[in-house]
């Protein structure tokens, strides 16, 4: 029943996304097929891929640091990717998109590793501490990137990377996002290892997990996903925070079992945000990232507020744990 509802919802969203836009499919000069192939289908696919990728990236980060209040935009990942992109744009202005992408991924991986090193020093007792540290870390990196872009006259690039939106998506300019599909496949293969990370370092190592290798795999997937989203459509904050939190509450932390649910929920949420952005001030558009941030911030506040009440029923011995329960 639930699966049917999800399928109907997904198909409904896709059909709506293909049908709705500033140009009318029926009266378009170039014909409906042209409009669909060049603009609407790429745009729909881009929103679905970005949403799925960012939601999964959030789940991976949360398990890797055992804190549910963290997501890629709170680990300095997009800012580092932007730094890598700026560097390539300056040093090799004519570089192919793939080269830029690789540079952005490597920079994002380094920036995320920096956050992981910081995270080891942060006391675990108060789960709010780590996201605050992440916020400051991302803020410092972001300020550095802005300063750099300002001085090199690249501010307009920065603007497009920071504000996720899909109005510019056309055939030939979004295909890199299919890399996310590859990342989802990789993640599926490593899902058990990432879930083990969520049990804590000692427990994971005691079960024979190679910690470094697993972190590199997980954070590599996060870095590549965020980098490709930043390059093609711009960063969408909150997706990686809100979607995995809702799914985890409802279905738990077993990544292998929940991976399709997280991916699908993220995809649908971002596509829905893009659709709302298209119709709310028709024929003008509001970026999907802005729409999601408004809705996502509301849901996030609700999660923060509702959490202690939901987890209180656990017995006395658990009380000391509830505050930190997985972050």
């Amino acid at each position, binding site marked *: 029943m639930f699966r049917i509802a999800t399928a109907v919802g997904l198909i409904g969203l896709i059909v709506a996304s293909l049908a709705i836009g500033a140009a009318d499919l029926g009266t378009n000069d170039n014909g409906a097929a042209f409009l669909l192939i060049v603009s609407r289908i790429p745009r729909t696919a881009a929103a679905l891929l970005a949403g799925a990728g960012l939601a999964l990236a959030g789940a991976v980060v949360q398990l890797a640091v*055992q804190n549910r209040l963290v997501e890629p935009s709170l680990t300095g990942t997009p800012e580092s990717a932007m730094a890598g992109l700026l560097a390539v744009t300056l040093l090799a202005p004519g570089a192919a998109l793939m080269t830029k992408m690789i540079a952005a991924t490597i920079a994002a991986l380094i920036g995320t590793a920096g956050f992981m090193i910081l995270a080891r020093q942060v006391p*675990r*007792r108060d*789960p709010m501490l780590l996201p605050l540290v992440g916020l400051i870390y991302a803020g410092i990196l972001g300020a550095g990137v802005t300063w750099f872009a300002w001085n090199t006259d690249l501010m307009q690039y920065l603007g497009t990377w920071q504000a996720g939106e899909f109005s510019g998506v056309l055939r030939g300019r979004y295909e890199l996002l299919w890399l996310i599909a590859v990342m989802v496949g990789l993640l599926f293969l490593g899902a*058990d*290892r990432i*879930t*083990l990370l*969520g*049990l*804590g370092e*000692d*427990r994971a*190592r*005691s*079960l*024979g*997990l*190679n910690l470094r290798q697993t972190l590199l795999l997980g954070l590599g997937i996060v870095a590549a996903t965020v980098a490709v989203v930043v390059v093609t459509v711009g960063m969408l904050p909150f997706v990686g925070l809100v979607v995995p939190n809702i799914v*985890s*509450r409802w279905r*738990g*932390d*077993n990544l292998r079992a929940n991976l399709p649910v997280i991916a699908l929920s993220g995809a649908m949420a971002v596509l829905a945000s893009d659709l709302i952005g298209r119709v709310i001030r028709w024929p003008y558009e509001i970026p999907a990232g802005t729409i999601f941030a408004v809705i996502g911030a509301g849901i996030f506040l609700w999660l923060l507020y509702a959490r202690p009440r939901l*987890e209180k*029923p*656990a*017995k*006395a*011995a*658990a009380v*000391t*744990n509830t*505050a*930190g*329960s*997985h*972050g």
Partner: protein
Amino acid sequence: MIRITDLHLHRDGQPILHGIDANIPATGLTAVIGPNGAGKSSLLHCLAGLTAPDQGAVQVGNADIAKARPADRARMVALLTQSTPALPRLTVAELVAFGRWPHHRGRPTRADREIVAQSMDAFDLAGLAGRRVDTLSGGQRQRAFVAMAHAQSTPWMLLDEPLAALDPKYARDIMDRLHGLSRPGPDARGIIVVLHDLAMAARYADWVISLKDGRLVGNAPRSDVMTSEGLSALFESDIIVEDLRGRPVVVLA
């Protein structure tokens, strides 16, 4: 047998363990006791191969545990660390099944599933299989984690204060089950437990290791280590060990 030879460990320039030499018998229940900061958890981490000593070695069977590959290590020794603030949102069945991970690395066989079922039975968890670990009571949750270590099917099970914050009923329940697993027989396990509760150590341990300030104080059968003089000196507090109907009883004087 676990052979510890001249084990030294430092952290941030501070000595944690110095010069520990001990052999731990392969069957039976060994309790590790000592005051706070004696190095009990560090010793357990060294025995499990998670912390490499600065000097000396730990031999588990014939292998130097610090040099073993992670996958091999996890088939020799299961370590249950002290509970962390992170509570996984996994069902009891999922959690215990992850205990088999060192054996199947993501591809469980029917034999793995049978062992998971046996481990759940051994800790009376069959009725809780579908419950999420984060919704269990403290006693149930601890049983689930011990069952996970049990499912790892290692000849050695190491537990770091598994009874912390448990009521006597649940604490005894876990100790009874661990004690049973360590009785001599074809499937007997060597069980090493860091215990804060001396009454539990007196009741269940066959062998006792006592540590103080990173040095080995005692390494002998329970009756030799758990004496009034020995414990009083170890904890710098007046402790009396009495015999009550053939069992040692620890009393704070």
